[in-house]
């Protein structure tokens, strides 16, 4: 009999998603549009981040009915979000059979100190990170995939760029340290020592790293790919735009042909309105989603 729930199959699904686009959807109809456009997975939500931001209040795991209907509507993997530290929401999502759980700062955190112990689950987890230490802490807790946090629901790519550059800078720095300095480096970035050694060996994160948080155009997607991300999450960027189906297809093509400006130019034509963006400086500190997570 085969062995299920191993780290190999958890990280392996993320490897299969690489070079692809994972799209936020709130209805079975949107899920079908996403699949038809070439999404490699969908994120089933009650509201996209831009609407969560607008609505305020406490954002929680979606109603299971929405998630089940989306799972029934498409054949590609379906992800869903639980609150940071809310292991019961994670248990519910696992029992529904979702393919990946995003322990996400887009929802209101349920714990001000601890994240979910992701090793206890058979379903794999993806978590957001702004820097190497945060990424390695999440991997240490069992995350099998990492994404930049960016600033969700803004249509503004600057924070996602900052986060991937930060992670890459720190990987370059740590990879060049002499062995005797690595324990102190692990202490400085508050990361597990064994995972620091792994990063030094690989000169990369030990798991797949996607871009997320503010990607709104094909050019944004290609930018994040050229900066070294393995794939793209698009949240509000698609279904808050003028022509979601067309924009979704364009972002898929730009993610595959990220090194080919002629293709990106072609797919960027006549896409209609992009989502209205938000400048990061105008967001109140308590509304910054990227600062959630410990």
């Amino acid at each position, binding site marked *: 009999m085969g062995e*299920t729930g191993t780290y*190999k*199959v958890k990280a392996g699904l993320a*490897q299969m998603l690489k070079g692809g686009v994972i799209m936020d959807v709130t209805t079975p109809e949107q899920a079908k549009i996403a699949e038809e456009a*070439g*999404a*490699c997975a969908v994120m089933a939500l009650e509201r996209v981040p831009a609407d969560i931001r607008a609505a305020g209040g406490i954002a929680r795991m979606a109603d299971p009915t929405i998630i089940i209907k989306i799972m029934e509507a498409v054949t590609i993997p379906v992800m869903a979000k639980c609150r940071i530290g809310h292991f019961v929401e994670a248990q519910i999502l696992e029992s529904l059979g979702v393919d990946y759980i995003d322990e996400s700062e887009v929802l209101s955190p349920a714990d001000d100190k601890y994240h979910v112990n992701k090793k206890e689950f058979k379903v794999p987890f993806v978590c957001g990170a702004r820097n190497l230490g945060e990424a390695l802490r999440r991997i240490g807790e069992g995350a099998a995939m990492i994404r930049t946090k960016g600033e969700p629901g803004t249509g503004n790519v600057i924070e996602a760029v900052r986060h991937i550059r930060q992670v890459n800078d720190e990987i370059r720095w740590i990879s060049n340290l002499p062995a005797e300095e690595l324990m102190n480096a692990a202490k400085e970035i508050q990361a597990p020592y064994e995972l620091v050694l792994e990063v030094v060996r690989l000169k990369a994160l030990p798991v797949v790293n996607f871009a997320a948080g503010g990607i709104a155009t094909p050019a944004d997607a290609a930018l994040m790919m050229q900066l070294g991300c393995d794939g793209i999450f698009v949240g509000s960027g698609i279904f808050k735009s003028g022509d979601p189906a067309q924009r979704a297809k364009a972002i898929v093509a730009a*993610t595959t042909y990220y090194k080919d400006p002629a293709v990106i130019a072609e797919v960027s034509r006549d896409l209609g309105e992009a989502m209205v963006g938000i400048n990061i400086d105008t967001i109140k500190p308590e509304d910054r989603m990227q600062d959630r997570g410990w």
Partner: protein
Amino acid sequence: MAGKKIGILALQGAFIEHEDCLRKCGANPQQIRSVQEMDQIEGLIIPGGESTTIGKLMHKYRLEDKIKEKHAEGMPIWGTCAGMILLAKEIADMEQVHLDLMDISVRRNAFGRQVESFVTELEVEGIGRSQGVFIRAPYVDKVWGEARVLAYYRDYIVMVQEGHLLATAFHPELTDDLSIHSYFLEMI
């Protein structure tokens, strides 16, 4: 086998993993995203990923016809997981773009969703023991014509060869075992 130029369809999915395995085998891997690049290779791997995503991009960027043309000229092609689905002549209960090349009928996500993904030991004909990593994997419902079964998991067909076509439901590129990559390189 040193230096054989092997293309890996790099539209979406785990193509870098295949590239690393081929390099360890001494071959010369090339990422393929365009029709022109298809003319520079001696064999092609269609990797794991999402078969619907790869199929749509393959169609839109005209690689579908080019791969069929290369197949007709006798170029060896190996599909893993999504790649196996794309090679099949029949996909059970599903309509999607596929290459329609191999005398097999496949069932997508046949073992269930991600929580049912598993790792197991397989006995592969002509190769021996091999680790099988199955991720939301398909299996083969039936084979006909010249298609020959090379491996089963329990009663399910998970590896098939038909002339210069090879299909695996599992992912040798996620293991340290290079025997199936070597086997494919021998086909060239």
